């Protein structure tokens, strides 16, 4: 029991990542409302961002803004500084996720104009009728 608890608490952010990802996945597949699907997609992407940020972080790590002089002299302890690369990658991933959301919202708007609803079942019903 203790080992099990320690496992969860010790890797707590990774567990949160898995839970978030599955939540998003469920919403994308199961929800009928197109905007809810989109929200699920965003949660899914956020989960991945959390994973990347977790890999860069270190216990007690400092922010990665270094003094040039110190860095050149080699006086910086790399182990004491948070790895900035995953953060930078995630900035790009956030931009990507915002653009996908933007495109998707525009598409949802066109769907709404076409069918007058954003519920998937009702849309399919309307397609079936026409």
């Amino acid at each position, binding site marked *: 029991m203790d080992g099990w608890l320690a496992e969860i608490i010790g890797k707590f952010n990774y567990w949160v990542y898995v839970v978030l990802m599955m939540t998003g996945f469920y919403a994308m597949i199961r929800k009928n409302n197109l905007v809810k699907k989109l929200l699920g*997609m965003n949660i899914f992407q956020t989960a*991945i961002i959390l994973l*990347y940020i977790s890999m860069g972080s270190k216990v007690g790590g400092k922010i990665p803004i270094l003094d040039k002089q110190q860095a050149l002299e080699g006086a910086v302890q790399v182990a004491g500084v948070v790895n900035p690369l995953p953060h930078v990658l995630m900035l790009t991933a956030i931009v990507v996720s915002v653009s996908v959301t933007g*495109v998707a919202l525009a*598409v949802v708007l066109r769907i709404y104009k076409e069918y007058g609803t954003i519920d998937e079942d009702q849309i399919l019903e309307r397609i079936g009728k026409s």
Partner: protein
Amino acid sequence: MNHNLPVLVLAFPLLAAFAVNLLGKISKKHVAPWTLASLSLSAVASSWVLMDVLQTGKFTYTVGGWMAPYGIELVLDPLSALMLALVSWVALVATFSALPSIKQEMPGREHLFFSLYLILVSGMMGLVITGDAFNLYVLLEITSITTYGLIAMGKGRAPLSSFNYIIVGTIGACFYLLGVGYLYLLTGTLNMADIASRLPALYESPTAATAFCFLMVGLWIKMAFFPLHGWLPNAYTHAPKGAGVLVAPLMTKVSVFLMIRIIFSIYSPEYAFLGHAGIKNLVVWAAAIAIVCASLLALAQKDFVKMLSYIIVAEVGYLVGGVWLANQQGLTGAIFHVLNDSLMTLCFFVAASAIAYRTGKSRIEDFRGLFKKMPLTMLALCVGALSVVGVPPTCGFFSKWFLLLGGVQAGQWEFVAALIFSSLVNAVLFYRVFEVAFSQPEEGASLELEGSRTLEVPAMMIPPLVVVTVALLAIGLSAGPLVREVIRFAIPSL
């Protein structure tokens, strides 16, 4: 080689995309020349790069002077240079057909369509030559987002199909990103060559296997490998015809190339194929099932373009199976078939958009009398059909032959059977189309095309039809030298 050609190849369409958007606002006259000029320059430059690579061997281009593994590098080996040339030439040829059909389908919005179109082309070129795993993700999303936009520009059900594609495509891209994340966790680097040099020591780690699974499944979603193909048929059927001619021939094939890239340049064939023989057999079985099911689904379609979309899904099965046969013949077949299949698909979609341009129809039963009305288009379609069935002088026969040999050599008889079955189904499919097209139109029915005079497509649409038809035959006739001189060098060593 230290010139800037590789990066110029993708810079031409990218810069022209903005020019088309801005100048197109002023006058629609600017759209066609800018699009065609930039793609022609790209096509010429990419052929030059291919020649260079074949003569002098692989080289890397450092973008912006930031050295790898910190900066992004472009890797030009024979395979990626071949793909680069394929993408740029197919894009150029497709544009001739897209220009008139978009002018008809969405008058007044051509500049918007073609700026997305050009960004998509340049994104695909970037995908095939980038040497950085994360950069690849960004380019994958650039191509996907532009494709979502292009498809959503269609009428009727297009936005809904595009939305489904967005949801599924994002899951695929996120899986890829996760895979890259695990690789970064394991090796601390994102450059493909650098990952490849550090990974062998870590092959035992379950993280390496997890990353491999995520990368593969992500790409399978993107390439519509059956049963992950759900988004493709609707998206391609309802897309504007001008988008179909570009997206259908290239997107799935580029994803197949990325799969080859991951197996051979990041992991090694030993890891992917030999480590777990059970998985290799499973994937080939899945490919065989994909081919059979997609062919049967194609048989059930009444809409011509939807039938073509299911043929694409079946062809993806050929390619995945060919690669996972894990022998020289199968891989030769798969790479050769990437080339042939994009030309065949281009041929079909150009013909379909020509028919839609003249008649506005895409249901097979409405094709009555088309041979008389549009002889040139139907001739091109015939050659394409012969090729997809696999009749000797056309190129489809040769790549299928290599795939069959590979299947026999690997002892994967189910794959061989599926290939033959699918060829027969393709023959039935196109026989059905041509039977209708040869028959005389009934009195009064489907006669928006008055009389029996020929109504060939506009002059703009003739070059792509002719070029593709000739290319299908020429590649078939020169299959031997082509495999010996080009494709053999393109094959990563097994």
